[in-house]
């Protein structure tokens, strides 16, 4: 500690799942001297242990903490991810990839998709994915990291697909090395200050008592502090996102090819994921229990998943929504304890990461928490959740599927105003409501709209000004360049195997 620094704050992290260890490691590593981090976890309770697909932001987290990427990938059996392949969402038989990248480039100030819409009208355009390097590489099962310049070969990002049961332990080791104290045991009591209502200490089954100034609730769906103790109000989103269960089931690889993307396939009462890791494939059916029973869902995933089943389907239950306040008193919820949005766009770990980033920015400068910092944190977390929520709802609502009760419901449900406005602007004019904060910008919205067959009525008149042959020529040139770059890439599997430091030891 150097002069001028306040006494370190005693930070107690309750929970040692992904959220808990990311928080503890992040705070301990980035705020040495400011925070004394103590994490409590219970082996008996265990962790959710799913959550395998991520977003490119996780790379920033790994880098910021100074974690060696190769070691991290090796420890978590990670593969690379270029996007998500959505199947049967807009209608049965259709598919598209939502890439970590964009489509083409704007020309003369007009977005690429307007030109594409124009060519498509003329019958001269391939699928929009033909003009995205990330999509083409994914479809060809190829991968290399993007180059570091401004050329086409730099025009995508990547994330990881990893084993969630290994990620926590990896972060634990990192956290402990960086000074996190760890206590194993079940919390059975919560003490609160009689006057302020703040949490003052946690008591364990063993009788041990752990005091703190700041408590981070990472207790998962239990939400022991934010929910049980402080009774923070829950905002329920089931009416927009009816899925409330998942049947998860790992399988063995069926071929040597490891896909550099996650697959999400729509099902009669939800959708199922397929996430290829180095050593196995994660599968799971996310479903709405009001439309299908748990047994039926387990049967369905067992039938649909390819490859030898490595375990029986395990059912997880959840509620879509969030606490109205993620930071209340001296308790901050991170991860499942603060809210849940189904993993359709792999956003949960991102949301935990964002909460950690904001916590670090707003880290109390003493045991007295300024209410303005708390408000600011809650404002930011709300913004993040709302943006993701609208984007997820879009995947369900933008469909012509009428083959099940579930799809009839989501196709016709009433939408949040914030989403219906965006969709109307797209439907009328082919434009995206612009924002630069939070998650999912223009390219993502365009990918889902077009991928799910929502064509606007009109596009920019300027896209029709050049001769169609001229635009078609430019597009096929782009397609060719993309094709050349993709052909030059090794297969994803080959790239992984070349990077021996990133590969887990054979089981």
């Amino acid at each position, binding site marked *: 500690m*150097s002069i*001028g*620094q306040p006494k370190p704050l005693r930070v107690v992290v309750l929970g040692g799942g992904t959220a808990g260890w990311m928080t503890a490691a992040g705070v301990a590593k*980035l*705020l*040495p*001297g*400011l925070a004394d981090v103590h994490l409590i976890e219970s082996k008996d309770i265990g962790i959710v242990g799913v959550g395998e697909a991520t977003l490119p932001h996780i790379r920033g987290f790994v880098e910021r903490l100074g974690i060696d990427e190769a070691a991290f990938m090796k420890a978590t059996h990670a593969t690379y991810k270029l996007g998500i392949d959505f199947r049967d969402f807009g209608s049965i038989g259709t598919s598209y990839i939502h890439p970590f990248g964009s489509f083409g480039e704007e020309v*003369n*100030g007009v977005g690429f998709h307007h030109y594409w*819409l*124009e060519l*498509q*009208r003329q019958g001269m355009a391939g699928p929009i994915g033909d003009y995205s390097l990330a999509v083409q590489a994914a479809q060809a099962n190829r991968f290399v990291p993007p180059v570091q310049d401004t050329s086409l070969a730099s025009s995508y990002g990547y994330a990881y697909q990893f084993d969630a049961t290994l990620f926590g332990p990896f972060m634990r080791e990192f956290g402990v090395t960086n000074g996190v104290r760890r206590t194993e045991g079940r919390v059975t009591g919560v003490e609160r200050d009689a006057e302020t209502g703040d949490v003052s200490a946690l008591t364990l089954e063993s009788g041990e008592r752990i005091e703190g100034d700041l408590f981070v609730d990472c207790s998962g769906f239990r939400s022991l502090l934010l929910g049980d103790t402080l009774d923070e109000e829950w905002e329920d989103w089931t009416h927009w996102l009816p899925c409330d269960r998942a049947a998860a089931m790992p399988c063995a690889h069926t071929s040597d090819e490891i896909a550099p993307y996650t697959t999400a396939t729509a099902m009669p009462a939800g959708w199922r994921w397929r996430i290829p890791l180095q050593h196995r494939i994660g599968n799971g059916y996310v479903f709405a229990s009001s439309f299908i029973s748990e047994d039926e869902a387990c049967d369905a995933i067992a039938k649909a998943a390819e490859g030898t089943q490595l375990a029986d389907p395990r059912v997880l239950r959840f509620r879509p929504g969030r606490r109205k306040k993620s930071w209340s008193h001296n308790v901050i919820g991170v991860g499942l304890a603060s809210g849940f949005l189904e993993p359709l766009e792999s956003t949960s770990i991102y949301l935990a990461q964002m909460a950690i980033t904001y916590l*670090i*920015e*707003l*880290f109390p*400068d003493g045991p007295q928490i*300024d209410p*303005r*910092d708390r408000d*600011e944190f809650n404002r930011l977390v709300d913004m993040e959740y709302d943006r993701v929520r609208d984007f997820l709802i879009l995947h369900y609502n933008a469909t012509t599927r009428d083959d099940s009760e579930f799809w009839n419901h989501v196709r016709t449900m009433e939408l949040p105003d914030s989403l219906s406005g965006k969709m*109307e*602007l797209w439907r*009328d*004019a*082919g*434009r995206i*409501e*612009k*924002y*630069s*904060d939070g998650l999912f910008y223009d390219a993502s919205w365009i990918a889902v709209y077009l991928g799910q067959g929502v*064509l*606007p*009525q*009109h*596009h*920019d*008149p*300027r*896209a*029709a*000004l050049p001769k169609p042959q001229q635009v078609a020529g430019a597009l096929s040139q782009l397609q060719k360049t993309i094709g050349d770059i993709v052909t030059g890439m090794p297969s994803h599997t080959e790239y992984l195997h070349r990077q021996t430091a990133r590969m887990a030891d054979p089981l």
Partner: protein
Amino acid sequence: MSNPRAPLRRIVVAGDGQLGSLAALAIKQALPFAEVIIIGTPVDNGALADRSPTALPFTNRFHDRLGLQEELLLLRAGGCHRLVLRYIGWGGHDGSGAVQHGAMPYGLSNDASLKTRFAQEWGGGSRSGTEGQSGSQFAGSVAEILAGRGQFAILPSETPTPLSDVDYALRWNPAAYRDLIIERAAAAGVRHIAGEISDTVPDGQGGLSALTIAGAGTIEADFFVDCTGPSAALLSRTAPVKRDDWQEYLPIRQLAFAQPVKPVLSLEDRVSLPQHGWLNELAGRDALQLMLALPDGVSDGQIMDMLGQPPAESISLNPGAVCEPWTGNVAALGDAAAQFEPLGFLNLDLAHRQLELLLEMLPGQVVDPRERDEYNRRAGLMAAGVRDVLGLHYAAPAAAERFGPLKQSAHLKRVLDQSSRRGRIPFSEELPLANQELSALLAALGMGSGLTPLALAEGNDAAEKSRAAFEAKAQAALSAAPPYGEWLGRFLQSNQPG
């Protein structure tokens, strides 16, 4: 299936000042097959965007996009560079009674340094005492150091140079600039009609179908762009204009311009607090221009005292923004959409950003109401952002004392609070300045920011490292940059036309 909307056939831009001409040129470039007509209806004197001799770095990039090379502005429009805007006295006095001052640079390169303890103590740009004197040979931003030594150049190079990170704004002579743009527009096929708008014909859908020019007949068009200044000659004829009044937010009601005096080549402009209001000193190749910005209640005598002469021109100001700058098929830009004091040179910058937004959302023959709503939503955010940045100036210690309590938006309050206590700037959409620039502005205005938890945690070693890195960067920049006057002279000489 998606169909293209039928493109605009004829667009009329009213007002042929520097903003209207640029709008006409830009629209013609975007729609080469359309007929673009610019009406030389007089722009009012109070059109601050039109009379502004300078903008911000955004405009440089916008010009590039429109094919207006910077060289051209230097050669034909009296162009020169500003690296920093120095705020003098906004932070009040320090313990020893010395006046605080600070220089605000542009761009994002100040990012990393501003987050460290070193930068907050040294690099934030706020000091007191005689200008140029400070504890270290290298204090402030690289831009400030270059400006202080009068060294700068645009170095032609494919690879980054020690000056590549230094962003800048341009100044020019508005009349020469406007003539240059008009010439470009004419070459691109824009028709220019002189005359006053005597009447307009409504289109029955909240917009216009034609306008009448005294002596030149009636001109029909699909779309109209109003660049006529505060009177909003076209927009005001669509419907009663609803305006968001900013009088409670912003104190200035009058601007007094001094007779321009002899040219000054400087990389720095200044804004200080004389006895009343604030005083802007804008350097330039053809003149140094002084402008007083005043609240109500300052007498002519007091103005005389401050300027040392009677003002050459005075204009009154009623700050505010039109709620729906695009109504029907009429879009208002610049002062026709928002009026406010030229503090920090945001007027033409806002106008150009509105124009860029209009180009992005350029409609078809039939205006799509949702597209228009989205334009108005974003233009509204832009205007509110400008109001907040101006409001931020008036929160500076000495300014707050002088101009009294003013209303602040929730976002501005949040920025001031978060910055002073936590060293962070909450993000807001469509702001004229990047967060790094806002940090620099706050520091220049003498509003010290709190240390971020990260800076607190990093300790003194990291601060020492940033200091060393900064000094190396500053030294490299100084070695690479020739005296600005010499460079500019050589540049003009060797690029003489003919």
